[in-house]
């Protein structure tokens, strides 16, 4: 587990610059929204995602989230087919706030271009790279 400025980044995950995490599971990828971004957004009250079966491209919109009166996008960290959407989120989007790396996962993707795209993500084991990226994000956010 990497802890940066009080925020948790498990070291077995990969991190996309649009604040999504990726966990590799038997050739598939479970993805979610990282703890820092979830906290910055505030308690989520709505989520809408593209449905299972759709193919999504890395960096494109996987869904949208709303907290209070702020609306933001969830970007897909990997290109591939969505094979599963977390069924618990529609009733309780705030699972993302409560357990961003557990019950609050967003989708499972069958990646099409895993090897190449994985290189664009920051591995949780590379603490220095994670710290540098997050520092930049924190500065931009002014928090």
């Amino acid at each position, binding site marked *: 587990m990497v802890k940066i400025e009080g925020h948790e980044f498990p070291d077995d995950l990969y991190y996309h610059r649009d604040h999504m995490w990726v966990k590799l599971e038997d050739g598939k990828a479970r993805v979610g929204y990282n703890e820092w971004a979830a906290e910055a957004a505030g308690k989520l009250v709505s*989520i809408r995602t593209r449905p299972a079966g759709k193919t999504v491209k890395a960096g494109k919109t996987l869904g949208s989230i709303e907290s209070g009166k702020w609306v933001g996008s969830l970007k897909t960290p990997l290109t591939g087919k969505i094979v599963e959407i977390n069924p618990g989120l529609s009733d309780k989007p705030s699972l993302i706030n409560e357990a961003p790396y557990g019950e609050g996962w967003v989708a499972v993707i069958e990646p099409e271009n895993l090897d190449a795209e994985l290189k664009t993500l920051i591995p949780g084991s590379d603490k220095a790279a994670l710290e540098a990226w997050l520092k930049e994000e924190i500065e931009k956010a002014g928090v």
Partner: protein
Amino acid sequence: MEKWRLLDLGKAEPYTAQTFYEAVAEAVHRGLSPNTLILVQPASPYACIGFHQDIEKEIDLEFTEAEGLPVIRRSQGGGATYLDGNQVFYQLISRDSEAVPRSVDRLFEKALGVTVEGYRRLGVPAEYKPLNDVVVGGRKISGNGAGMHESASILVGNFIMDLNYPLMARVLRVPDEKFRDKMAKSMEQWVTTLKRELGESPTPEHIKEVYTEAFQELMAVRLVPGEPTEEERRIYAEETKPRHISREWLYMEAPRGKVGRAVKIAHEVKVVEADHKAGKLIRLRAEVKGTEILDLRVTGDLFVIPKEAVRDLEAELVGAHLEEGELLEKITRFYEERSPESPGVTPRDYVDALMKLRTLL
């Protein structure tokens, strides 16, 4: 000092007033347009739903169709509302601006500081109430929302000159007319306007002048009057407006709704209704502030002797919070002291029904 473009669109038809800023945000994201403050008044009335809402659940479409009121799904969050020419909208579109914090909390605090200052200079002692409300004497006087469009940050809000409360309550879909009456009364109590506060509203021109002055001072930017670019007009005509008038966008499937009905009135204040099937049906309609019950009506097919006990129980629960322990204690005590008979309905059933209201908050 950072320079922003000021786009005063004057009075504009509803789609332009509500969605042109999205074309500007796309142009700002692509690096084609500068950071921009848009000021605009809707030229005619319309109903507007939040990005994640279900149009059929929120809006009385038979009414809006009969009245010829367009319904627009905005790209920002929040609830369904009625808007018309008695509002002046401000829409801040920026990217990598020193003046605009990216954190939601700070963005609201800073931008709504300008709204508060604007109201104060107009003679209304407004205050900022986190996260995104501007209130005067506890009543809401400005609605605000924010979001991101790719790399562009968006914050939109309004100055409310006057409100047509009955029409605002009329466009929303409600379980029954009693719910609508309660909602209309709650809106009158919790939402106010420049006209109500001052006796007469300042003119839109004066509001815009005061707001732009406060904006430049507090955001530390210089506003330079400008016009929409050809590219923005093209994005609006070819992308933004076609998307907004498409059935696919307007009837976009909403996330699964909760059981019951909730309408947000103002900061923390909601009117909620839910049914609970115990041995009998308990229907609860409440006005709540946070988790505190401000008003409660218990109906359904329940049969209680003496019949006044229902009204007394409602009165007993005003001021209580939607907390299981507190409710169970109050209702159990009420039953012990008053010994009402309510076949098929126990104190526990009331608590379960009330906790259903809590899920709607």
